[in-house]
């Protein structure tokens, strides 16, 4: 709409397309390389000169990954852990964010600073002590532990984003609620949460991608095959016997599908939510 007064600009449009299509090609080349590798037979995978498209398409790699390996279980584990984690993290973080934006508590800045600081502690450093702790408490090798760690590590960032979002909400909503005699928790649950969908979606999607792809935590805190998540399961195809590129790439392609679909479904809310959260910082 805002462009209407500037008139048509074929030159700029052409440039835009050139740049964006070039960017899309660079973005997609490795992904397509992986996809076509997954559709090749073992004999063709390493052929040289390299071919992009398979000479003969085969679905063998996909069927082997889906029906003759532990991969479906890893996929299910990843879905479960990721889903619970984003729900819990979003609930906990939205409460915390609301508390720091709408209650005039003391040490508000200090609390926010503490929360922010903890998001900057490198995960590598905490793995070893956390491992020892989890063993002592008896939580080692449970999905509960994974969910606890992921959730706790995502809370600071989510609180930060959601706080930005809540601060941008019109003050009138809260005032109107207060006049109607709503308590602060009621205002939060009945008024704020329903209109905060974009912020929550942005926060949830960011966490989902993080948990889905993380390797360090899921590999350190689980050893049982039945608890393994996707990101670790991929390593089954990288063995002392060589990298099984066909199977590996089939597994990778399957593993990114849920995230891509989630992104396509949520992208409008996602951008909106990021807009509020990030601009505020």
């Amino acid at each position, binding site marked *: 709409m*805002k462009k209407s007064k*500037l008139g048509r600009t074929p030159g*700029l449009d052409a440039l*835009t397309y050139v*740049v*964006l299509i070039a*960017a899309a090609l660079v*973005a997609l*080349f*490795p*992904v397509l*390389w*992986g996809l076509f590798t997954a559709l090749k037979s073992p004999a063709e995978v*390493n052929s*040289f*000169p*390299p071919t992009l498209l398979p000479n003969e398409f085969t679905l063998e790699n996909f069927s082997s990954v889906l029906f003759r390996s532990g991969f479906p279980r890893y996929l299910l584990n990843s879905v479960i852990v990721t889903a619970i984690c984003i729900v819990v993290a979003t609930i*906990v973080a939205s*409460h*915390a964010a*609301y*508390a*720091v934006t709408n*209650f*005039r*508590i*003391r040490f508000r800045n200090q*609390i926010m600073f*503490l929360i922010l*600081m903890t998001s*900057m502690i*490198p*995960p*590598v*450093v*905490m793995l*070893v*002590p*956390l491992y020892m*702790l989890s063993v002592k408490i008896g939580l080692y090798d449970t999905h509960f532990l994974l969910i*606890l*760690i992921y959730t*706790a590590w995502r*809370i600071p960032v989510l609180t930060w984003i959601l706080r930005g979002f809540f601060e941008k909400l019109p003050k009138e909503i809260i005032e109107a609620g207060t006049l109607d005699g709503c308590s*602060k928790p009621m205002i939060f649950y009945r008024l704020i949460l329903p209109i905060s969908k974009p912020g929550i979606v942005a926060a949830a999607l960011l966490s989902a*991608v993080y948990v889905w792809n*993380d390797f360090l935590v899921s590999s350190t805190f689980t050893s049982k095959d039945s608890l393994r998540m996707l990101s670790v399961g*991929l390593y089954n195809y990288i063995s002392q016997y060589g990298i099984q590129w066909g199977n590996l790439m089939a597994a990778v392609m399957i593993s*990114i599908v849920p*995230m*891509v679909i989630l*992104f396509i479904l949520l*992208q409008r809310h996602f*951008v*909106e939510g*990021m*807009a509020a959260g*990030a*601009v505020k*910082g």
Partner: protein
Amino acid sequence: MPGSSREVRLTRKSSDVGVATAFLAPAILMIVLVTIIPICMAIRTSFHATNYAEVGAFVGLDNFIAVFTGNGLKNILNSIRYVLLSLVVVIPLGVAIGSLLNRKIRGNTLLRTLIIIPWVLSQTVTALLWRWILNGNYGPIAYLVYGLTGRKVDFFSSAGSANVMLVFANAWNTVPVVIILTIAALQTIPGDVMEAGQMDGATRWQIYTRITLPLIRPTIITAVVMQSMEYFNMVTLIYTLTAGGPFDSTQTLSLAAYQNAFNYWHMDIASAYGVIIFLLNIVFSLVYVKLLNTNRE
């Protein structure tokens, strides 16, 4: 929790204290449990000797001395170079592509989705794919270059080009985040601001550089800070792509911490690395807060 009993001024309803505490408690509790306690343990370990997972005798600053007489300084420089180079590539590229994607052109939803796909690939997969594609002996890019120029290219054999490749793979994986942030920020700019610029007879480029960019500056700063933290703490991508080589030129602090802990079982040295990373992160976050405060003005 520190000070929770005196959180409220006299004018506040006392029930607010309870509610605020209840709202904050789960977050604080989890952070203390899963972040604060482990980091305290790591700090303690950094002053002790270890044998596998067992913490042994107190050794004072020995572990830190070992880090700095070893690769420590080099690691710090590598980390800083990696973060800065990545930012120099990722931020302008992300802002530029984000701005173009925000234009109302046909197919921009499709293009946006395609361009953002690399973001959902994990660091492991990113590194494995690029290591194959860029391999000097059998990778497709090297093959193309050879076909065109007759010369064999070798992307990972010198410190300089290995760093460039690493930054490139990182950018490929993380530019989408900056693109999303940019689009998000651009969508909050009201149309009339642009129109005002238009009235003054400014060109598109002038509008973009003098009005649009300053308006999204806070977002760019946020992106810079968020990404620099992530790059500073990155392990998996570097570990899989170059393993720190050649000649330790891509061995960053975080990578050294990881290798010491999980390849060599030097939990003590790894903890010392961890404390150093943590201290540097504190410096960063102070700068972060300062930058964000200027954001608010």
